[in-house]
């Protein structure tokens, strides 16, 4: 019961919160009502005059009824209270009208009440209705209770009063509900909207605070790349003011035009929904350089009801990270350089000299795209990678990408990258190697052995070959370096732990003479690992051992020195090569044509380009190098079984300069210096030398 009473009170009494808007509305309605009530004065005077009641008296009564509204209007501050007085006053006006409306229409004058009460809905306050109805009921009750029962006992029964009141109540109840509903659906709704708006504004403020305090840039984009209204302060700090077009592409283009174009194309693909979302998002630019800062761009989709609506872009200043990575790369490079120098100083110095020459040549040719510049860049990239450098190969790769995409010499910034990387490395190398002279170091055994040979008068021809061999380099050392590279590449390319079998046959070669070839050979190695060797899964499916094997060998076959690189991979895809050759306008009819095409510049057997291989430049460089050393290339490939590259040279070229000197001095077995460490002279080995 108390609950019902509470509900009734809650229904009748409006919430205390009233907004300025409600006050303004009620003031307007109260003013209108006051005007209308004031109009009753002449109107009722006329009605009274027409009905011959008493115009003056009726106007006096109306003035009395108006006293309340005017007093309330002037004295009360609450517009709701004034409304209630207005409602009461209308009922008094009704009472007066019924009195002055004498005659046949007197009953009809009662309609005034039933017309006015619904109009009070405009106050949107059930209490106004209740007050009005209570007023009407009250003077009925006053009348009934004050009449002397002795006179009216039989004529004024209570039920008549009830009937009279019930009609008013019947009207008042729905009108009150309507008024409350009107209030709920307008004023309270406005209040709720205002409250919600305030909450939203507060939430917005909090979001703004949050967005302004984070160091990352957050912004939301629609399918057209338009930037949403909310974005973090860091966006402006990192990328500048949002452009008038409100397009993210325009914002990006102020820093990196290529990234902006890239983003514009990528965004279409993201929202096209043809490709997987994860893939298309990955294709958007991930990093841009803005002045001296590096900014990373990450993307997150906003999906509603299974449909991509927006993407969130997170911009981070990764300058410090990039600088640190650069430093780490430089440190790694330095360590790699130190390792290489320690392993093979001669080879490294040779690489260094050749690389410097290549860089100079490349820089001199930056006017037009041609095969030479492509080959030089590719060779520099391969050699630098082979010697453990990172920045040079990356810079070369970027230049190659640009040339292949645009068929023109790239912008200066890419050259600057290469230049800076090379300058940095060159300075380090120069500091490390002050003396570039190649020295020969003898072990104790070798020294003792030669000394004894001299003391024992070993023939000059034997001693000469022995000493001459000191400047030669065992091919095993080179093959081992290549083997290391194979192992590293295998891991990097997901080919598992590759087996490398070395057969050097204890051969030796002139390191200076052969250095360029060993450098160039890395292209063959990279092709073998990247193209030839299958992944572990593929190999298992083909009933092959899980890990591939690469055979490296140096041998003498008759009068030829043969360097062989053989893998047990998938073999060359001749049909694809044929197609590539056809597209390149090269002969492709015979096997010989295809082998020629294989090593021709621009023809690659691989469909996609990777950092490692696939451009079709490396093999051309190998051939050129091979030819410059007087050699030729033989290719044997069986589909599914593997490929072997054989590089065949004249045997005297193994130690080209030394062979010429020895021959000049009449040393008959000059070739012996390249075969193995010359055996010590029999009698020399009989003695020992002690220090």
């Amino acid at each position, binding site marked *: 019961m108390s609950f019902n009473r509470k509900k009734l009170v809650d229904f009748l009494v409006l919430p205390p919160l009233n907004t300025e808007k409600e006050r303004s509305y009620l003031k307007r309605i109260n003013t209108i009502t006051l005007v209308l009530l004031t109009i009753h004065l002449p109107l009722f005077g006329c009605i009274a005059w027409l009905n011959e009641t008493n115009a003056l008296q009726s106007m006096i009564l109306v003035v009395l009824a108006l006293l309340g509204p005017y*007093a*309330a209007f002037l004295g009360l501050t609450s517009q709701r209270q004034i409304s209630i007085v207005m409602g*009461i006053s209308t009922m008094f006006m009704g*009472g*007066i009208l019924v009195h002055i409306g004498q*005659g046949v229409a*007197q009953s009809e004058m009662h309609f005034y009440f039933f017309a006015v009460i619904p109009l009070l809905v405009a106050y949107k306050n059930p209490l106004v209705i209740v007050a009005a109805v209570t007023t009407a009921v009250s*003077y*009925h009750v006053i009348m009934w209770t004050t009449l002397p029962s002795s006179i009216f006992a039989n004529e004024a029964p209570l039920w008549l009063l009830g009937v009279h009141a019930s009609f008013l109540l019947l009207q008042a109840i729905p009108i009150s509900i309507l008024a409350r509903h009107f209030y709920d659906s307008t004023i309270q709704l406005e209040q709720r909207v205002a409250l919600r708006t305030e909450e939203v504004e507060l939430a917005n403020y909090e979001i703004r605070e949050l967005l302004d305090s984070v160091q990352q840039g957050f912004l939301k984009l629609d399918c057209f790349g338009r930037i949403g209204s909310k974005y973090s302060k860091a966006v402006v700090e990192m990328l500048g003011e949002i452009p008038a077009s409100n397009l993210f592409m325009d914002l990006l283009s102020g820093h990196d035009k290529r990234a902006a174009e890239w983003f514009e194309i990528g965004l279409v693909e993201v929202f096209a929904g043809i490709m997987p979302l994860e893939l298309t998002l990955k294709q958007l630019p991930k990093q841009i350089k803005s002045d001296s800062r590096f900014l990373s761009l990450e993307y997150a989709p906003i999906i509603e009801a299974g449909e991509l609506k927006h993407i969130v872009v997170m911009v981070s200043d990764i300058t410090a990270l990039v600088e640190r990575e650069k430093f780490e790369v430089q440190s790694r490079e330095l360590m790699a350089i130190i390792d290489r120098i320690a392993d093979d100083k001669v080879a490294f110095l040779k690489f260094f000299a050749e690389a410097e020459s290549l860089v100079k040549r490349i820089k001199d040719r930056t006017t037009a795209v041609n095969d030479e510049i492509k080959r030089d860049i590719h060779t520099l990239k391969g050699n630098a990678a082979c010697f453990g450098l990172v920045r040079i190969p990356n810079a070369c790769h970027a230049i190659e990408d640009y040339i292949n995409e645009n068929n023109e010499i790239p912008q200066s910034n890419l050259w600057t990258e290469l230049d800076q990387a090379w300058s940095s490395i060159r300075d380090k190398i120069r500091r490390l190697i002050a003396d570039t002279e190649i020295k020969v170091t003898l072990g104790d055994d070798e020294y003792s052995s030669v000394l004894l040979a001299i003391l024992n008068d070993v023939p000059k021809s034997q001693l000469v070959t022995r000493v001459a061999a000191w400047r030669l380099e065992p091919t095993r050392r080179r093959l081992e370096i290549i083997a290391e590279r194979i192992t590293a590449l295998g891991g990097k390319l997901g080919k598992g732990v590759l087996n490398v079998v070395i057969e050097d046959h204890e051969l030796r070669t002139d390191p200076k003479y052969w250095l360029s070839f060993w450098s160039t050979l890395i292209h063959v190695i990279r092709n073998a690992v990247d193209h030839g060797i299958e992944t572990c899964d593929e190999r298992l499916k083909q009933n092959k051992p899980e890990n591939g094997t690469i055979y490296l060998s140096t041998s003498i076959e008759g009068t030829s020195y043969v360097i062989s690189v053989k893998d047990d991979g998938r073999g060359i895809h001749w049909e694809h090569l044929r197609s590539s050759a056809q597209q390149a306008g090269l002969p492709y009819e015979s096997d010989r044509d295809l082998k020629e095409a294989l090593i021709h510049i621009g023809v690659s057997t691989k469909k996609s380009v990777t950092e490692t291989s696939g451009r079709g430049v490396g093999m051309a460089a190998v051939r050129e190098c091979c030819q410059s050393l007087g050699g030729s290339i033989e290719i044997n490939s069986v589909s599914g079984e593997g490929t072997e590259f054989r590089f065949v040279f004249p045997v005297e070229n193994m130690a080209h300069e030394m062979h010429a000197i020895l021959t000049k001095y009449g040393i008959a077995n000059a070739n012996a210096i390249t075969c193995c460490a010359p055996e010590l002279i029999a009698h020399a080995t009989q003695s020992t030398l002690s220090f």
Partner: protein
Amino acid sequence: MISCIRQTSVSILLAIWAAVMAFVCATLMIGHWIPLPAPQVGTRLQIGYISPANDSASWKAFHFLSCECRCSQRILKHLLDREPLQNMDEVIVCIGESDQNCELLSNCKYTVVWVKPEELKSKYNVESAPLLVVLDSDKIIQYSGAYTPRKQGFAIQDVSIISRTRDGESIPPFPLFGCGVSRELRAFTDPLGLKNQ
């Protein structure tokens, strides 16, 4: 503080205003909301003080009309618009001062009797107007009530009521809505003197 006092004062004034106006409206209602008292049918009407023109007539109709009552004026106008009925002694009892200027009555064909409001009850035992009372030849009231079936309705049915009553038909009296004209009743129905002109 001043504002609070002002608010309270205004609220008190408004409460007084509402009470007064409620009382005024209540008094204005009397007479058109509750039927006024009329002599009972079957009783004898005190008519000793009247001096009818034809006292021998067997049936009489008395029209009690107040000079200050707007309702009575309507009935009077109606009566004057028709001729008095044949075989019926119709008497207009004008409640008010006899020296009131009433040109309408000066040449009318009805018997007109003037009675002061303070004498009305004592002379006729009547307190309200407009009232139609029909007496038979034994001076017994056969009809005592209003002229119209509804409050101040268009259809003034005095002729029909008189004729049918005379024909022996018992007609339920119409409730009387009008003015309390006797001094005693006026004290209750119009304490503020607003209703009578």
